[in-house]
């Protein structure tokens, strides 16, 4: 009997808190970070994937079903990055508020021109996304667009606080615009330089800052590095005097270290996600870290 009352109590508490704040679920930490910038203390943000894990393969934990069930808004990439784990969660969550097309569903790729859309789709090319490369949030200009989208959706879902969300967006936009000058200046000396990455997660970052990140330790996206491919990469790196190899927290750093020691390049730890590197709890801090780390390695 006591237990029953306890459960009721929890239900009531949940129901009340749900009304007070907008419950926002973000599939990935970058969207979560932008949602916090816009929503401030008017929203509860739950992020499903951990910043340090591979976003292609996240376990569809049952607790995520509960988060999605209680969500007023869901922010996902909309570009198949989460295709391996989000669909069954949504099926179980049974929450019409976050169906595609509803105001509660914010698909970050809307309005973003995705890069590297394959002309032909074949899995012989590895884990290629049919809609284009889905790792777009690391471009600050695209991040602004996502933030604006989030602000518009939050305003529609929570009209009394619309001005608050819009003001937060303006603030974010101003900050990014100012920061872009700083980041652009820091990257300018390395214009057109080649950088090697473990996985093809960085075309948007490269495009924004005038870099060429087009050699990868993976022979094809999602396929682990093979010795013969690495030999090729090492030869290319030596020929082009490439100074940096980008790895993400979930990649096998030892492989990158091996290539680095064979070529004299530096291994640079990068992350697509706020929280993936120490001291990067916000989007701005993340790009700060990426720019300063890369600049230091390329010097």
């Amino acid at each position: 009997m006591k237990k029953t009352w306890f459960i009721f109590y929890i239900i009531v508490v949940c129901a009340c808190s749900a009304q007070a704040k907008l419950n926002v679920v973000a599939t990935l930490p970058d969207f979560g970070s932008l949602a916090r910038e816009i929503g401030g203390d008017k929203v509860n943000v739950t992020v499903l994937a951990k910043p340090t894990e591979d976003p292609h393969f996240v376990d569809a934990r049952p607790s995520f079903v509960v988060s999605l069930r209680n969500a007023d808004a869901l922010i996902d990439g909309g570009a198949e990055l989460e295709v391996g784990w989000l669909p069954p969660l949504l099926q179980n969550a049974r929450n019409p508020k976050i169906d595609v097309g509803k105001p509660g569903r914010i698909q970050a790729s809307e309005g973003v021109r995705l890069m590297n859309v394959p002309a032909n789709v074949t899995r012989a090319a590895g884990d290629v996304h049919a809609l284009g490369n889905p790792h777009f949030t690391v471009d600050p200009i695209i991040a602004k667009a996502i933030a604006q989208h989030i602000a518009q959706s939050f305003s529609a879902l929570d009209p009394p606080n619309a001005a608050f969300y819009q003001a937060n967006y303006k603030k974010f936009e101003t900050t990014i615009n100012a920061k872009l000058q700083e980041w652009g200046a820091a990257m300018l000396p390395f214009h057109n330089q080649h950088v090697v990455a473990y996985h093809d997660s960085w075309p948007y970052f490269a495009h924004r800052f005038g870099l060429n990140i087009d050699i990868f330790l993976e022979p094809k996206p999602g396929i682990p590095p093979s010795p013969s491919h690495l030999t090729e990469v090492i030869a290319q790196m030596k020929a082009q005097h490439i100074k940096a190899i980008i790895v993400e927290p979930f990649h096998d750093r030892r492989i990158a270290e091996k290539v680095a020691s064979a070529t004299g390049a530096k291994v640079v730890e990068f992350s697509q996600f706020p929280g993936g590197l120490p001291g990067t709890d916000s989007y701005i801090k993340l790009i700060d870290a990426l720019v300063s780390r890369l600049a230091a390695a390329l010097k």
Partner: protein
Amino acid sequence: MKRIILIALAILPLAIVSAQQAAPPAASASPAPNVSSTTPATAEDVAALRQQVQSLTQTVKGLQQQVKDQQAALEKANLTGESGLPANPEPSAIAGAEASLTPSGSAVPQFPTEDTSVVSSTTAPAALPAAGASPSSLPGSFPTTDTSVVTSAPETISSTGAGASLTQPITIGGGKAYMNISLDSVFALAYSSATDLHNIEVGDHDPQQRGFNARNTELAFDGAVDPYFEGFANIVFLLDNNNNTEVELEEAFMQTTSLPYNLQLKGGQFLAAFGRLNSTHPHTWDFADTPLVNGLFLGPDGLRGVGAQASWTLPVPWYSQLIFASQNGQGEAGFSFRNPGDNGMFFDRVTTDRAARGLQDFVWIPRFENSFNLSDTQTVLAGVSGAFGSNETGANSRTQIYGADLLYKWKSSHAEGGFPFVKWQTEFMYRRFQAGHGADDSFPVAETFHDWGLYSQVLWGFKKGWVAGIRGDYVHMQDSMYTDDLDRQSRWRLSANLTWYPTEFSKIRLQYNQDFLQKNFFLSAREVESIFLQWEFILGSHGAHKF
């Protein structure tokens, strides 16, 4: 395409006119960007540029409005046309980038032919190409917008169908279709010390003979039916030991998508939500064969049938779900229930093979499952299930199966491709089976069997794509002096395997089984060793992974 050209034609004259109107301030300042590439920009230059940009922005805003109006008019006039905005007018963002990187001097007169974000990027006069100029001397020099963003969000179209209803095509492989299709084929090369491997392996999709086996090629279809239902079908083709093709309608059901109060209804032919493994398809299993307890209690094909199911996720802060299903429970897929058996015999009795008399002849299948996160990287899912119905060995004989299952999973917080992980899964079942007198009281005794069994398996994904597993199986069948049946032998099994997943669409697995069948009243003890090399491929839509 036609519409895009129309819009472009409509914009062009307007743009030329507006550009001419804006000409005086532009003319005085337009050489500035070119100058800036040779001499450092002065404060005056910058101020002039700002002014120019402001006036341009005004013009552009006016133009945008005009374009919108035109578009609206066009849309009205051309309702049959495709969606309002070009989803991807330029396939490559790099092309857009090049545009934004060219000196703005040349871009100014032509700006109306580009979209709005190109125009606004002229606020940044040639930042990157002007490598000679000191970048910090030009505040506002780095572009803060460009064509990578098509427009501000809600008015736009995403390739995944923003603003789409559930009935719009589902995206597969970049194309559009109303359903996802996939083909999945599993094969096995088997060797066993037993010549009658089909008596040792208990699942219909397990390797059943020495040599090559093709016992599970399935076609899976799924998609949204309409805004209210989604549909799913799974059709299995298998080659029996005589190389004849058998076709099974393994599953075909629809379920609701938009019921309130976290309810979901499902109807059709489906695998019962009993325990962990029963509701899943063989290609998702961690071993090459069915656990003994699943094959011997729930049946070689699992417990499935035509029926209906309701499920409800409880409004509590953790994951908690109640599921209740009812199925006909007929035939081999209702193995311990209304199963006429091979050649009309089950557990040594001639079966009654009767039609359903009433509710007592259906199989009733409740399940209650809960899940908790022990930490950020550890999850537990536990459930209890039941299956209750009548069987065919007597006029009023009934079967009850109770199950309990537990799944524990740890996955690294730095997982790549889902690795490394450790997964421990156990299922326990108890079956009470009333074996009656058979059809027309042809069998001398009625017995009640209390059988139980369990399996427990640990999988260790130690490296991206590599999984090692061990499994222990035990089934206790109550011994009988009357019932002579191969399936009533208590037995245990130890299995070990190693699986390589080159990608999530293929796998190669090597498995070793050691079987021990215990002596009973009719059968002698046996020891069997088997080895399987299993391989699998998946074509088509990306199968998502259930937890």
